[in-house]
């Protein structure tokens, strides 16, 4: 094979995108978001589930429609429409993708953060996130084993146009509820975390979060930023451009946290985090393995859903339902540590992801 550049010009773009997203995320914390949670796809989707179903799932502490999610979806949708990349597509094992989304969320809520927040926690000086980041690396490596063996959930095809609009329409519905909850009276069956009752009550102002989300959505759609893909591409195809995304994210968050005086280096008293090393590592390994089989991190799933990918929207639906389940079943971690049944739950989920990986590999072998 001929010589190939392993770092191309898109590395600069991805690094810049990561810097921007990390910096905005750290800034959102200074504006009111929970510590090291300026942006967390898992946490924010979980909070949205809490708003709609918190009364049933026992999510009183984490119930709020995060406007960042609305902004990200609408921003990515706008960018995709503008560049003619909005394409309704789907049909690549949607049910399997729902299950993988569910399991991703479950792992993230045991670790306390998604694959984006793991880097942001590290960028805030939270050294307990190292166990999660090591889990990301492990999950990527396990996923690569199956990808190399030919794992494939099958090709997506063009689908009926309305299916491509499900996630953007969902974002608009969320926006309506967010505005009602902020400026009017939300219906009695919804739930919003009361001040002082948990991280759900901590947030930047609605329109600040929304605008930040819009900007992040545009940048993520154009750059194809992925919180796991960088490590994956580096190992699998020896291409390092995407890795600059998470490096930028880490640097951007670290610098802005330092400038704003939010940087707290250490293993103790970290916001919305626990210090169970093995639990964090295992949870993120399982979550990342699931994301590898989906073809991208949860952030990417949201972005692709906003581009008309119905399969990604289904994965996001799995995440929303998974979040409700984890709280309802008492399996989500707290800053005190893992729930008693978290380990058996992780074992079951690891077995399910392995079965999916084996099935997807055998089918194409």
């Amino acid at each position: 094979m001929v010589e190939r550049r392993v770092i191309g010009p898109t590395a600069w773009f991805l690094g810049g995108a990561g810097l921007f997203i990390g910096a905005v995320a750290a800034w959102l914390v200074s504006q009111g978001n929970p510590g090291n949670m300026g942006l967390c796809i898992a946490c924010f989707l979980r909070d949205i589930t809490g708003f709609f179903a918190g009364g049933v799932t026992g999510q009183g502490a984490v119930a709020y429609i995060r406007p960042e999610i609305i902004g990200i979806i609408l921003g990515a949708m706008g960018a995709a429409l503008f560049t003619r990349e909005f394409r309704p597509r789907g049909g690549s094992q949607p049910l399997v993708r729902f299950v993988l989304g569910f399991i991703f969320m479950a792992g993230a809520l045991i670790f306390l953060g998604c694959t984006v927040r793991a880097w942001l926690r590290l960028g805030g000086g939270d050294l307990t996130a190292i166990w999660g980041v090591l889990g990301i690396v492990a999950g990527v490596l396990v996923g690569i084993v199956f990808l190399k063996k030919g794992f494939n959930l099958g090709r997506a095809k063009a689908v009926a146009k309305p299916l491509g609009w499900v996630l953007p329409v969902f974002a608009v519905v969320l926006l309506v509820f967010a505005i009602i909850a902020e400026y009017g009276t939300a219906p009695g069956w919804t739930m919003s975390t009361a001040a002082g009752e948990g991280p759900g009550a901590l947030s930047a102002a609605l329109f600040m979060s929304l605008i930040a989300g819009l900007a992040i959505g545009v940048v993520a759609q154009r750059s194809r930023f992925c919180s796991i893909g960088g490590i994956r591409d580096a190992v699998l195809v020896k291409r390092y451009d995407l890795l600059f995304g998470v490096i930028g994210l880490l640097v951007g968050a670290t610098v802005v946290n330092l400038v704003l005086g939010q940087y707290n280096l250490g293993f103790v008293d970290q916001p919305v985090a626990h210090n169970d090393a093995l639990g964090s590592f295992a949870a993120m390994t399982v979550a990342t393995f699931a994301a590898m089989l989906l073809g991208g991190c949860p952030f990417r799933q949201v972005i692709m859903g906003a581009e008309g990918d119905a399969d990604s929207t289904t994965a996001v639906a799995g995440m929303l339902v998974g979040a409700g389940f984890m709280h309802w079943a008492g399996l989500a971690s707290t800053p005190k540590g893992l729930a008693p049944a978290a380990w058996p739950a992780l074992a079951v989920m690891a077995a399910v992801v392995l079965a999916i990986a084996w099935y997807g590999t055998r089918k194409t072998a």
Partner: protein
Amino acid sequence: MKELDVRGLSCPMPLMHTKKAIEDDPTEVLVHADSGTAKANVVAFLHDAGYTVTVDESGDEYRIRGAR
């Protein structure tokens, strides 16, 4: 000329297939893709491998042609 179809494939399969296709150094390669991300990744990858790349967009398909 090497021709490959990465339409409908999730990441990172478009890149894996492209990498495999250029292993024996074809002078021309044609990749059929249908998502913006696959297009962007394949185009960048071929550029990095020294190909001159052109993209035709027809309907829902990107025809990515690399030559050297």
